[in-house]
């Protein structure tokens, strides 16, 4: 098919060149000849490529399933214009072979250089029970978790996703492993397995998508980083112009502030509502309220008692967390490419009540169980400004309120504090493409009256493989 067209175009090209030649000087002539030679060369290469493409296209067309063609007869008149001459191919037919059904794969590589003025092994939040891994990073060079993700449709009813992380300590952990029932009616998409809970705003975003190197203090203090749900999730989007999403989750309750309690039934229940929309083409927002209820049995942590001894404490009781979150984004006419601004904040509140055992391991010889009740809260607010393509600056402020802690009869050994841990961070990042980001972050963390840490992070995030999603 392309050969007569090609011939015609080649003729037209030659004529076009000929017209130019008439009005040209000798020097021009040489240049034009040179250009023609170049054109010829590129043209020959093109024809070759075209012929190759034609062959493959013919082969594909012969094998293409007829289902791709619409059944109803097209009522529209045929296009009057001729087919383009440039490299063309038939509508894509998927290639076969043993790997044809491989899931989408992506990997995230991360690492940092860290400079901390205080010893990270002494990291602790005044007035808060340490909650797992809150240390920002080891000093000097380190890699952070490398993430590997696989996802694909399982069949006509299910979609599956597996994300595991390879830790710098050479262990593997499953971050998310869930299925989604995609054929459910009424806008419900039940999810089951292990997944990051959709409470709050930041909780279900992976660490590499955050705008700062580390999680806000409220996430560290109240959720031990991020809340992972092992169980079930149901979300429902209301059929309205305003975005209204209701969600509920149940699970084993083994994630902090709960723990594994060796019991049947459900260990935690979460519920949330997210509302959002556009103010105009330039401004969009989302706000949410979330509630998490879980329980802990003999949740261990150690704390300095009134006499300065490191006492082991065990908490058994209920833990309730409420979160209010909002995010607001601005970009001129919704085009975030040049400049954009993002403001987000979350407020956390947690109540724990139950029993606390002082000196649970008997190291001090004073083991005693008493009542316990705490009401604590905190917030963070952050703004990120992209001032030119690929460059952003950001600022974040964290604040925690140790609130009221009632140790009951253990009040003789344990005291509460009125110190507010707080942290201020500034960051600058460079995002040369959607798949790479480099960041430098400075922050001052006042975690205890006698512990002010000045921290510097230089971080990289590289993404390989399947295209990531642009989350709001």
């Amino acid at each position, binding site marked *: 098919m392309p050969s007569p067209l090609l011939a015609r175009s080649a003729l037209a090209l030659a004529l076009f060149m000929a017209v130019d030649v008439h009005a040209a000087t000798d020097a021009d002539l040489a240049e034009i000849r040179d250009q023609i030679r170049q054109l010829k060369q590129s043209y020959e290469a093109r024809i070759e490529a075209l012929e190759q493409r034609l062959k493959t296209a013919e082969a594909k067309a012969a094998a293409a399933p007829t289902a791709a063609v619409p059944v109803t007869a097209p009522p*529209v008149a045929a296009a*009057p214009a001729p087919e383009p001459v440039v490299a063309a191919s038939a509508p894509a037919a998927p290639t076969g072979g043993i790997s044809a059904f491989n899931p989408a794969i992506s990997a995230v590589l991360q690492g940092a250089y860290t400079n901390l003025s205080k010893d990270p092994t002494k990291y602790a939040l005044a007035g808060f029970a340490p909650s797992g891994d809150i240390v920002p990073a080891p000093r000097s060079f380190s890699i952070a978790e490398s993430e590997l993700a696989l996802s694909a449709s399982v069949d006509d009813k299910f979609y599956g996703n597996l994300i595991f992380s390879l830790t710098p300590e050479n262990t593997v952990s499953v971050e998310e492993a869930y299925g989604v029932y995609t054929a459910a009616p009424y806008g419900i998409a039940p999810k089951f397995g292990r997944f990051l809970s959709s409470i709050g705003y930041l909780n279900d975003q992976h660490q590499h998508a955050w705008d700062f190197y580390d999680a806000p203090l409220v996430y560290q203090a109240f959720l031990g980083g991020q809340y992972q749900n092992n169980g079930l999730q149901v979300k429902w989007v209301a059929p309205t112009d305003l975005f209204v999403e209701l969600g509920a989750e149940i699970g084993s309750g083994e994630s902090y502030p709960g723990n594994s309690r060796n019991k049947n039934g459900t260990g935690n229940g979460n519920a949330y509502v997210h509302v959002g929309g556009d103010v105009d083409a330039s401004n969009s927002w989302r706000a949410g309220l979330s509630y998490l209820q879980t329980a802990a049995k003999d949740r261990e942590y150690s704390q300095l008692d009134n006499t300065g001894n490191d006492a082991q404490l065990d908490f058994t009781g209920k833990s309730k967390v409420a979160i209010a979150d909002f995010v607001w984004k601005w970009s001129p006419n919704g085009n975030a490419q040049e400049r954009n601004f993002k403001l987000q904040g979350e407020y956390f509140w947690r109540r724990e009540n139950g029993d606390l055992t002082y000196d649970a391991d008997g190291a001090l010889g004073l083991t005693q169980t008493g009542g316990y009740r705490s009401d604590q809260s905190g917030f963070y607010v952050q703004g990120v400004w992209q001032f030119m393509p*690929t460059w952003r600056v950001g600022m974040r402020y964290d604040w925690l309120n140790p609130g009221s802690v009632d140790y009951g009869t253990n009040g003789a050994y344990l005291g509460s504090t009125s110190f507010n841990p707080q942290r201020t961070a500034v960051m600058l990042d460079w995002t040369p493409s959607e798949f790479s980001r480099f960041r430098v972050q400075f922050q001052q963390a006042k975690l205890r009256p006698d512990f002010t840490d000045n921290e510097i992070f230089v971080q990289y995030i590289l993404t390989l493989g399947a295209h990531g999603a642009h989350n709001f």
Partner: protein
Amino acid sequence: MKAILQGCLATALLALAAPALAALNVFATVPEWGALVEELGGDKVKVYVATNALQDPHHIEAKPSLIAGARNADLVVATGAELEIGWLPLVTQRAGNPKIQPGKPGYFEAAGFVTMLEKPSRLDRADGDVHPGGNPHIQTDPRNVLRVAAPLTARLVELDPANAAYYQQRGKSFGERFGIAIGNWEKLAAPLKGVPIVVQHKAFTYLIVWLGMNEVAALEPKPGVEPTTAWLSEVLALLERQPAKMVIRGAYQSDRASQWIAERARINAVALPFTVGGTPEARDLYGLYDDTIARLLKGAK
């Protein structure tokens, strides 16, 4: 906060109660397909256009409003060829609307009905933002819009058989009118044949092929990669050997690189509507190409 929430819920319930007037709710990812669905569906469709002409179609976020827009849709009309890869899968998934999932009749990709150009012979992100399916900016050639119109009409008929005759009649009428318009545009654009131009992003390949223009260079060193001064200098040097008439860009793109090159190479910088709504004149599909050609002719002078 509680009051706001109650207000929101009340609004939600009210909206639930309101009956849908149009037969088909259509979610168009970009303005050109929104305009085409309106041409074909008339008052039997209600069109939600997810993006505007001033947004970069590659970089859209799955905002709450888009999820809400997809929630009630009977049909999603997308370009495909991975143009919307960053956000549409997330939107259709989060909207929890089984009708518009890929593979269902309620999911329509235009690129499947068009001859794709610039299919990369190798796939490597080192080559920039490459699309395995070929260059996705198919709407810059109106003949592609016409090619999509037929199967899209068929899809409307399939989803809403009660109005089959209506869609078919409108589809036929659109095909005739638009076919004539294409002939007129081609006559009008005859002087553009062979005109050498520079593009900012490789967004106009189909337009260039249609009108027989000659793309001398691109300001982006690789698709989707911001031009650097070093690269622009190279383009400038190339333009001294191979002069161009103008540098063109889409309405959604910054004019910085275009102006830089236009001043130094003493050529015209032309902003094209790129899609419906990109300029005040590009009010509909006809205005889009009227204005595109008018601006190109002016730039070629």
